[in-house]
Structures are given as structure tokens and as C-alpha cells.
């Protein structure tokens, strides 16, 4: 091999390494943005009170008030406060597993549920409600920049992230996220089934100061499988809580 060929080979390998590392760095930046989006949506650990409403064309309209506690890398505990029929019903989500306890069921036992099932008949899944962090479950990469319309903000320039599941515990086959370019505020998310079907869309609006930061307070999840079926979650109260004890997020505590 002559010197020119050797130099060409070295340059080719160098370019390849640079290309891979650049792509990796970009992917890493995308992952950082996904984690940043998580922290814009919620603090690391928090207490929250929300009102969830669901409309489906063939079903009774539902509205419920819930209180939830979330501790990062530990779990989520949710209690229904209203309507009276469901009051006291509690949910515990941990690492992709979900339990429900209904004190009016005459049983002291918690029932295990599938995280991918609908949460209380809503368009949200159990996982959407119980696991509000995406960076843990999805590997992010950049998509193309787009301009979308937001009800409160008008036309907004956005960058997009594509999230591919890191493992089998991820609830969706793929997610796509629209972040406002100026501050990475999340405005929209599309959810794909494992089959590749786009079946749910989340729109975030009503930005206000919550737990010391500007955050969306109204979440609307539309079903793309059933016309005019949607659920909304309105955050009424959100406070960062860094002192939540682990014992709150145990099966033992769920039934107490």
C-alpha cells in the first residue's frame, strides 16, 4: 500500500469515526432535550391535583378529580377524590407495573392492572397517567423542524424529537414530540402503537406558573382511532416535593 492510499484510508476511517460520534452527539443532545422536556412538564418529585374529563361519542361523559404523588425513579401514587363512587380508589405505578386498590370493593387486596390499558375509560393509558417521564423509556433522535399551530400561541416554530423504546416496558412503539425552538416548551406529542399505527395525539396549552416554572396546565389527548373521542387533564395544583418517603410507593401502603 502506498502512502497516498494509506492517508486516504486513515482519512476515511477518521471521517467515519467523526460521523458516528457526531451522530451520537446529536442523539445525545436529543436525549438531553427529551429529559429537559420531562422536567418542563413536571418537577423531579411532586404533588399534584388534576381534573380529568373524558368524552367519547358512545359513552357517558366522565369527570374525575385526582391527587397524585410522584417520586423520580421510585413511582407514582394516585388517589381519586371525586366522583364519590370512585373516591378513595388508589393506583400505584412502579417500573411499568400498576396496582389498583378500591376500598369500596369489600376486599383489602390490591388488583394488578396492565399499564397499557385505558385509565378509567379515558383516552389516556394507565401508563400516561402513572409514568410522566419519557426519557427513561425512550431513546431520542432529532426529526425535521416544523411550524405548528397552538391554540394559545398561534404559529410556533418547533424542533421535533423521535423517541424509540429502550425496552419492552415502554408503552408505545414510538413517540414524536414537538418542542418550541425558543425554550423547548413541549407543545404536542404523537403516539404510535407497536404496529406503527399513529393512534393518539396530545396537545399542550394554557401555560402558567406551576411549581415555580412556566408549564402547560391543560393536556388534551385525542384518539385518532375513534372520531371525537378525547380526554383532558387540567392541572389545578402542582408543587415540588423533595421529601416524599419511599414507603408511600409500596404495595403495603397502597391498601392502608
Amino acid at each position, binding site marked *: 500500500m502506498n502512502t497516498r492510499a494509506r492517508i486516504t484510508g486513515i482519512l476515511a476511517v477518521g471521517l467515519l469515526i467523526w460521523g458516528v460520534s457526531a451522530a451520537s452527539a446529536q442523539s445525545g443532545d436529543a436525549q438531553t432535550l427529551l429529559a429537559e422536556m420531562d422536567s418542563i412538564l413536571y418537577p423531579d418529585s411532586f404533588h399534584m391535583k388534576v381534573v380529568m374529563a373524558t368524552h367519547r361519542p358512545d359513552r357517558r361523559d366522565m369527570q374525575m378529580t385526582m391527587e397524585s404523588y410522584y417520586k423520580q425513579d421510585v413511582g407514582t401514587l394516585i388517589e381519586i377524590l371525586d366522583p364519590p363512587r370512585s373516591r378513595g380508589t388508589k393506583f400505584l405505578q412502579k417500573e411499568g407495573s400498576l396496582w389498583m386498590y378500591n376500598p369500596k370493593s369489600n376486599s383489602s387486596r390490591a388488583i394488578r392492572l*396492565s399499564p397499557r*390499558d385505558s385509565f378509567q375509560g379515558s383516552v389516556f393509558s394507565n401508563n400516561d397517567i402513572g409514568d410522566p417521564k419519557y426519557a427513561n423509556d425512550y431513546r431520542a433522535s432529532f426529526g425535521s423542524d416544523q411550524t405548528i399551530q397552538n391554540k394559545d400561541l398561534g404559529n410556533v416554530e418547533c424542533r421535533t424529537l423521535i423517541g424509540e423504546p429502550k425496552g419492552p416496558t415502554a408503552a408505545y412503539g414510538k413517540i414524536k414530540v414537538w418542542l418550541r425552538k425558543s425554550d423547548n416548551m413541549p407543545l404536542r406529542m404523537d403516539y404510535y402503537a407497536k404496529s406503527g399505527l399513529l393512534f393518539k395525539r396530545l396537545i399542550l396549552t394554557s401555560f402558567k406558573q406551576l411549581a415555580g416554572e412556566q408549564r402547560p396546565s391543560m393536556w388534551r389527548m385525542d384518539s385518532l382511532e375513534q372520531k371525537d373521542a378525547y380526554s383532558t387533564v387540567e392541572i389545578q395544583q402542582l408543587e415540588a416535593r423533595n421529601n416524599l418517603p419511599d414507603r408511600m410507593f409500596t404495595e*403495603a401502603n397502597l391498601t392502608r
Partner: protein
Amino acid sequence: MTLNHCPHKKKLRCAIGAAALFLLLVSAPLSAQDYSVYGEITGSSTYHRVPDAAAQNVLTGEVKISANHRLTFQAGDFVAHHFLTIDQDGDYTHTVTEAYLNLFASPEVSISLGRQRINWGTGYTFAPTDSLHPETADPEVDMGFDGSSVLYTPGSNFTVSLALSLDDALGQVSREFYNGLKYAVYASLFAGSTTIAPSIVYEPDRTFRPGLSLSTEILNTVIFAEAACEFLNQAVYPNLSGSPLTRTAASWDPYPLLAAGVEKSFGNDIIDVNLLTEYYYNSAGYSGAEADALYADPAGLAGAGAGTGGNGGGAGLLRRHYASETVTVDLAGYVTAEGAVLVNLQDGSGAVEHSATVTALRGIDFKATGRWYFGKKGESEFGTFPLAAVLPGRATVELSATVHF
């Protein structure tokens, strides 16, 4: 003081107990950080059909008021679950299923004192590992044990509960107090998507039951299993003549118990369906020969040993295999229908329950329930208290309305 299931003679004690509970619940909120109460009021009418016993074909009615209280303090909370039933004659029964003080000694340790339950096992219809909590005649009532417990939570995925039950020690005249104490340890480890829960319950001469529970989720299907071995098998006989429950002497032979099943939910735009299938096997209890002797001469078994309360070994025939299936359908949020069947696989006896609940109105349910029983023989063994259950052709129809508050 015993507050549960107060008959007429105990009305005074019941009233005092209820008043004490009421005062505690009314006064404690003054110093509590937070107080919440919720519950329901149900009025029901039930028609009972008993074949070949026309006098027992009766219509009964009752009102049931149940409430759940929680007082939250800086260092703990007080929790109470209780209900009051009033029948058509005005007789009432007040039952406290739980009333305990829960103190947070540290972020990892909490101590509970009073009548309480520990979330135990994974079986739905039958919990083989659980001989800590007392059994009741009404399978719909999950009664707590009287005593204390310590819950240690070194991490969110691992908990250990230590419990001391006084159920068999309180009010005992024939046993030493310390021989009536029941000790239990229950640990729960969550790893991946699997919960593993070993446990042991021990009471001298009454029960020694090590066990293990598992549950996991695979492909949107929940799978659970629970197994135990009872080494003392102190059988408990049903109450035939108003006398205390009769117990046999304990023996150190192994009696295995098992429950396993799957649970699956699915649905479409209108209907949500939940299926629960479970098999269980209970080898603790009394033998068929002992059961025949009991039916023939209830007094003849009295000499075998006596005691009240608790759940030492098993109540019912030895070596019972059961299968149960429950189907729950929610129709567009307006109506919930449920069908359940429980069959004794050995004698073919069983029970079926159908119900439909209208949930269209906010805060009010209207429910119709039908129950009927089948079996090959007149004294078909079924459930925990056989004489209270199966007679072929026996059936009930119940209509009820429930207001939630």
C-alpha cells in the same frame, strides 16, 4: 372490647364502642392536619328461595352504612373502616373492620396499633399463605386482626411487615395468654415486573404456615400464584348449635395449599371486559369422616378441643379443589355487569352470581343481583361454612340502591 358482629345481648357494649369511635372521629379532626371521610349507604331487599323449606322462603331487607375515615397528623395517621347494618326488624349490627393508629417512627419504619389488615398474598378468591387475618362468616367482609405491626421499608421495592395478633389471646379462659399470641412476618420484593412475597404465620398449637406469593405481568396478562404449607392444621368446625366453634387438636403433618390464576382486560370503544380465572387447592381442614360425624352429632365433636376466633388451620373439608371464573363487563360507563362462578371440582357443587349495576347517575348505583347454588348432594360441601351455603336449588335475588358520599 369487641365491636364486630354485635348480637342483641352485646348492644350496650356495641353502643359504647360505637360512641367511643364516634367521639374519637369527631374530636381528632380538631388537632389533625387533614381529615377525610367517604363511604356509601345501601338499601337492599332480598328474596331467599330454599327448596323443601317453604317457611324459609322469605323476603328480607336491610340498610347498610359504611364509612372510611382518615385523620392525618404530622407523625402518622388514624384509619378506620366500619359499617352499620340495620335489618327490617330494626336490629342493627356494627362492624369495625379496621381502626388503627399508624405512627411514622422514621422514613423507613412505621408502627401500627389496633385492628388492621396487612396487604397479603396474590390470590383473589383464596389466599393460601394468609392465616393471620381472621375469617368471617361473610366472605364480603375482610376483617382486620387485633394487634400491632411494624412496617420496615428500606427501599421502595422491598418491604418487611412484622405482626403480632392478639385475636386468640383476648378473652381466653382455657389457654395461657402467651399461647394465644400469633406472630407473622410478610416480606415483599418487587423486581422487574415481578412481586415475590415470602411469609410465615405461627401460633403455638394453632398454626404454622410458611408460604410464598408471586405475581407478574406478561403480554398484558397478569399471572399470579400463591402457595403455602400448613403444618399444624387445627381444623375449625362450623357453628351448628350456637356453641363456640369447635377445633381439633393440632398435628404436625404437612397440608399444602395453593392458588394460581390469570387476569386479562380488553375492550373496544364501547365495552371493557375483564376476565379472571383462578384455581385453588386447600388441603387444610377436617376429614370427610369428621364432617359426617359433625352433621350426625354436633355435640360429639365437642371433646376434640375448643376455642373461638382466629384462623388456625382450615375450616372446611380436607383436600378441596376449586375453580373460579369472573367476567366483568362495563358497557359505555352506563352499566356494569358481572358474572362469577365458583365450583368445587370434587363434588361438583358450586355457586353462581350475576349482577348488573346501573352507574349512569352521578353518586347513585342501582343494582340487581341473583345468586344460585348447585350440587350433587344435599349436604354438599362448599366454601368456608358449608351449612350456611350450598343446598341445591337454593337461590337469592337482591335489589339494591347505593348512594355514595
